[in-house]
């Protein structure tokens, strides 16, 4: 409760937690998936598991873009940057993600020109500043970041900047949720919907989850009170036997999304027939690539890529953790070979990965408890 006590409206948080306990009762268990990695991080950081009753289980979803990217894609991106004169630019989250021959940072230590950028527009700026080199931006993310990549490519085309390309790994959230619902070993009662993705796509794309699958979904903000209120909204629906899409995060998420962002995506991207996700396998129409109008800025069309499928290290059970079948600490490598300092799987790299979040908060908390009991 430490963080919650420091947070605004602690009394309202206590009242909401009481309401959750009242609604949840003791008769049955509830399994709710938070789709977004940002929510996973916040749940651990704020210790929300300590507030929720035991019969509410939160399952961590696939919404951590770094975590779901298969290793072969990292190898492919790095192979382009092996060519002389190429600058490899990517978000900071990507830098420690392991490829077969090491992470982008390890390649940098071996001489590759690797740069961290905050924005795709900063990568385009690098291209302007280095006209004799080729800048390849390694793009990742769901609909939160895809519109920014789209607009950057439109700007590159408008300005005629040709020493710039994008290695596109953008994925879309709806097919991933569908794949999870189709998975036979997954039993879920409800979804906490992603906040920032919904800023772009709005709430309508979730309607099939409510109508066809009969699962409630509430788009949620990231503060402790937001997430607790979302749990209340889900429990109320479940108790009433309803399944609706509701928006708890109205102050940021419009029901219709951001149309300008959707227009930019429609201008630049088309759906890939299929794309591989770590843990979930191949999912049809789940990722984006550039259409013919923007082929010149597509690193995959401009350069040769090996396109070799790489399986994860055998002992690592990232796939099972990603699907929610295993808890992070149930993986054989967790906290031993695989730690945030020396990650083997991508879920241990990003602060939004469930293994890193679990390690940073729950695992350390448990270690401190056992130390204090020894003392």
């Amino acid at each position, binding site marked *: 409760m430490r*963080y919650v006590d*420091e*947070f*605004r409206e602690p009394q309202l948080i206590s009242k909401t937690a009481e309401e959750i306990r009242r609604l949840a009762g003791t008769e049955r268990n509830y399994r709710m998936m938070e789709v*977004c*990695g*940002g929510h996973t*991080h*916040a749940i651990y*950081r*704020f210790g929300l598991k300590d507030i929720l009753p035991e019969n509410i289980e939160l399952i961590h979803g696939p919404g951590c*873009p*770094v975590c779901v990217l298969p290793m072969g894609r990292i190898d492919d991106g790095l192979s382009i940057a092996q060519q002389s004169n190429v600058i490899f630019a990517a*978000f*900071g*989250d990507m830098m420690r993600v392991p490829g077969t021959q090491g992470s982008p940072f390890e390649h940098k230590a071996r001489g590759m020109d690797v*740069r*961290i*950028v*905050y*924005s*795709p*527009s*900063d990568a385009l*700026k*690098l291209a302007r*500043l280095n006209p004799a080199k080729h800048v390849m931006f390694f793009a*990742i*993310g769901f609909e*939160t*970041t895809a*519109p*920014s990549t789209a*607009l950057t490519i439109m*700007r590159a085309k408008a300005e005629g900047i040709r020493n710039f390309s994008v290695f596109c790994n953008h994925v879309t959230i709806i097919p991933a949720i569908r794949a999870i619902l189709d998975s036979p070993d997954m039993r879920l009662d409800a979804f906490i919907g992603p906040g*920032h993705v919904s*800023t*772009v796509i709005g709430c309508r794309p979730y309607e099939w989850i409510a109508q066809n699958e009969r699962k409630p979904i509430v788009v949620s903000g*990231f*503060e402790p009170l937001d997430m607790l209120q979302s749990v209340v909204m889900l429990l109320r629906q479940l108790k009433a036997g309803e399944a609706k899409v509701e928006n708890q995060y109205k*102050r*940021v998420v*419009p029901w219709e999304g*951001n*149309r*300008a*962002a959707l227009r*930019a995506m429609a201008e630049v991207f088309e759906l890939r027939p299929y794309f591989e996700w770590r843990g979930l396998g191949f999912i049809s129409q789940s990722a984006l690539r550039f259409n013919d109008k923007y082929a010149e800025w597509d690193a995959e069309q401009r350069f040769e890529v090996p396109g070799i499928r790489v399986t994860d290290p055998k002992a690592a059970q990232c796939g099972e953790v990603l699907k929610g079948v295993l808890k992070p600490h149930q993986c054989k490598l967790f906290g031993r070979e695989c730690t945030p300092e020396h990650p083997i799987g991508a879920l241990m790299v990003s*602060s*939004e990965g469930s293994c890193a979040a679990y390690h940073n908060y729950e695992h350390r908390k448990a270690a401190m408890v056992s130390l204090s009991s020894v003392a």
Partner: protein
Amino acid sequence: MCLAIPGKIVEIASDNQDSAVVDVVGVRRKIDLGLLQDDKPVPGDWVLIHVGFAMSKISEQDAADQMNTLRMLGEMHGTLQEVKGYGLEEVN
């Protein structure tokens, strides 16, 4: 990457309506307004920024709450590194 960073629009470039300078807890950087072209912000407005692009307009109170959330998540250092563009913003 997935952090939503709140910033206040300080200035919009006179030669490019899609380019603005924002202030994020005292640090200034250029951002792109192209994804808000249906509902253009003006100087003094608060926006949520994703990877250098303003994605939504928010109230001053929501901006303060979001900054507090980032602080509580232990992301303030990372946020400021991102806003500074890992040194790139200082290049020119």
